């Protein structure tokens, strides 16, 4: 077991960091928030070229995965640069589709799941589909065939960055993030997987998160395999979100330490005041212990402890990032509270991601439930 990143993994993280630092990411965030997804899509393609999305896609489907340690390494950097878009949602969808496609052979895609953005350059990747509302009506259809078709149609496109996918997994993930900018919107309703049409958009505290209620379309894939795959997707999405939060928190600490070292009040740098120092020290402590939980959960991928460890990581990363955000705001003062300054990008995101993919309380409850009631049965 590697409890620290190896040289290659570290290099991967540093490469992404440089890529995002040089890509004018804050501008892409603000454009995304203003309803112009193009700079964000361009970023998305660069990330795909660097191999980010392939990490969640099995090799058989054109990806390089699953590589959960590399995935959390990447998501840490995505959080650190406040990259917009349904990132955790897309990798969760990849997990969902890979599970449904697993063992079913990778056939052709399904019409109702076609790329809604018809002019898209990658639309030739779509395979043709066929109507199948009968299956949905019967409610008991097997997921095998359609799951396999879906997986075959979408997984390669996810891997290469050509498909932005949004995903709702009610009740923990009730809205489809950035559904208007997504090529595919999925929603799982019990045993059924449906393609969804974005409904009303609701404004988030983080303006780069556009949350849509979903109206599920026709032609579900259904059956117990959907529920199991949705569980796996939730775990991977929550893990990705935890890594993103750790990156958000790390960036907030970095910018706040820098600010505190230069900003002067009462004749000295505010970072010289013990009250400021101790707040920042506490943030570092929280982040330093969130990291091994995120890493440890990635190592547990595929083991019976994965759900428990993901929940531990998500709870700790949420709390650490939120503490970082509160401290960043307090130390920056009014500048941190101002929309047009960059710290607000991470301050808002920390709060939003804290309740996305399950609240800290919900994840702590899941940890204890695995440790007590469900332990024997689950493991």
């Amino acid at each position: 077991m590697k409890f620290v990143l190896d040289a290659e993994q570290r290099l991967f993280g540093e490469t992404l960091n440089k890529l995002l630092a040089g890509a004018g990411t804050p501008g892409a965030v603000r454009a995304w928030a203003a309803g112009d997804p193009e700079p964000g899509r361009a970023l998305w393609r660069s990330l795909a070229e660097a191999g980010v999305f392939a990490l969640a896609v099995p090799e058989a489907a054109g990806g390089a995965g699953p590589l959960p340690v590399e995935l959390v390494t990447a998501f840490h950097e995505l959080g650190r640069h406040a990259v917009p878009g349904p990132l955790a949602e897309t990798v969760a969808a990849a997990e969902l589709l890979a599970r449904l496609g697993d063992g079913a052979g990778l056939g052709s895609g399904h019409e109702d799941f076609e790329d809604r953005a018809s002019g898209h350059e990658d639309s030739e990747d779509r395979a043709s589909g066929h109507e199948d509302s009968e299956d949905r009506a019967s409610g008991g259809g097997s997921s095998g065939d359609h799951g396999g078709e879906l997986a075959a149609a979408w997984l390669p496109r996810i891997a290469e960055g050509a498909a932005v996918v949004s995903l709702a997994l009610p009740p923990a993930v009730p809205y489809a993030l950035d559904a208007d900018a997504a090529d595919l919107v999925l929603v799982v309703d019990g045993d059924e997987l449906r393609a969804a049409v974005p409904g009303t958009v609701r404004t988030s505290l983080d303006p780069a998160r556009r949350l849509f209620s979903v109206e599920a379309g026709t032609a579900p894939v259904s059956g117990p395999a959907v529920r199991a795959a949705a569980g796996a997707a939730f775990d991977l999405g929550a893990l990705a979100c935890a890594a993103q939060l750790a990156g958000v928190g790390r960036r907030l600490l970095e910018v706040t330490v820098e600010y505190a070292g230069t900003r002067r009040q009462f004749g000295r740098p505010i970072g010289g005041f013990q009250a400021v120092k101790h707040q920042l020290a506490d943030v570092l402590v929280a982040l330093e212990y969130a990291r091994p939980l995120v890493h440890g959960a990635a190592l547990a991928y595929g083991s019976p402890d994965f759900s428990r460890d993901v929940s531990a990581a998500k709870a700790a990363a949420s709390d650490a990032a939120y503490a970082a955000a509160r401290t960043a705001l307090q130390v920056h003062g009014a500048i941190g509270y101002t929309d047009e300054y960059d710290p607000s990008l991470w301050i808002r995101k920390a709060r939003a991601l804290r309740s996305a993919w399950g609240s800290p309380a919900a994840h702590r409850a899941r940890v204890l439930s695995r440790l007590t009631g469900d332990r024997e049965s689950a493991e």
Partner: protein
Amino acid sequence: MDLDLSSVEPFRAEVRDWLRAHVPAAPLPSLETGEGFAAHRAWERELAAARLSVVSWPARYGGRDATPLEWLVFEEEYYAAGAPGRVSQNGINLLAPTLFKYGTPEQLDRVLPPMASGEVIWAQAWSEPGAGSDLAALRATATRVDGGWLLNGQKTWSSRAAFADRGFGPFRSDPEAGRHRGLTYLMFPLDAEGLTRRPIGRLDGKPAFAELFFDDVFVPDADVVGEPGEGWKVAMGTTGSERGLTLRSPGRFTAAADRLVGLWRERADPADTALRDRVADAWIKARAYRLKGFETVSRTEDVGAESSVNKVFWSELDVALHETALDLLGPDGELEGDWLEGYVFSLAGPIYAGTNEIQRNVIAERVLGLPREGKA
């Protein structure tokens, strides 16, 4: 002093009845928009017509000489009724107490009645880039000219300034004097020649502030508050008032806590004792703040540095209360709405009017008597 709560019941009933009859059924548009600002100004006029805009002021300025207890009761009823936010609050809570302490009779007569009626809405203009809680680092200047002063430089995070009529704040009138000396406290029109305002958004993007750029903005002598060069003292008078009850009346928090209890009843899983504990704690703290308010108005001596104790308490209570609400809402917590807006507003509490770090220094040194820290 005894507080006869029953003696204020008629007043409470009058306020409650009036609010019930007049509070708009639908919330007004956000006061951080042009349309919303106008609607809130109209509401101030309506309040003023009922002599309810500034109840604690003397009648000659538009008030009704209400006692501090009556003012507390007014605030309780006002927030419990869910009445609109007070677009006049910068003037009423920050400038007016300063004028009552340092203003000339002419200034009182000229400034207060249109403030009470909502005819003139005021914006505070204190902070500058690089000078937030450290007022002594201000650099925007007021230069003596014939009959008045010329203002130059920049102010920022000026609340309400995007749409307000006039502003107030300290300017450096003697660049040679030390940090705390040589400031002059002035009032000025926001549409003055040479003044440019640029709205800036707060955390949720709403333009609750503006930057102000001064280029030889003329202010007559009549609009100096207190003595020229005494701006520090004058501003500190206002700060004291900010930190007392005026800035955040208990009614705000008791109303918010009651709404939180309502949200709990409506939305929470009753078996979730973790949330229950936090909801109860918010309610208890709001009640503590209310009882402390009664205690404060019962006392005759000056509150002084104890106002720092209040400021730390209400600002942390406000954040905790709204965090609890957002957590209670789960995935809906990040969505636009009253609770999110209240949360964003609450986050400014520990920062402005002197950060809570500064307040804790004040508590430790002036209330507890701990040694002063060496400050460069």
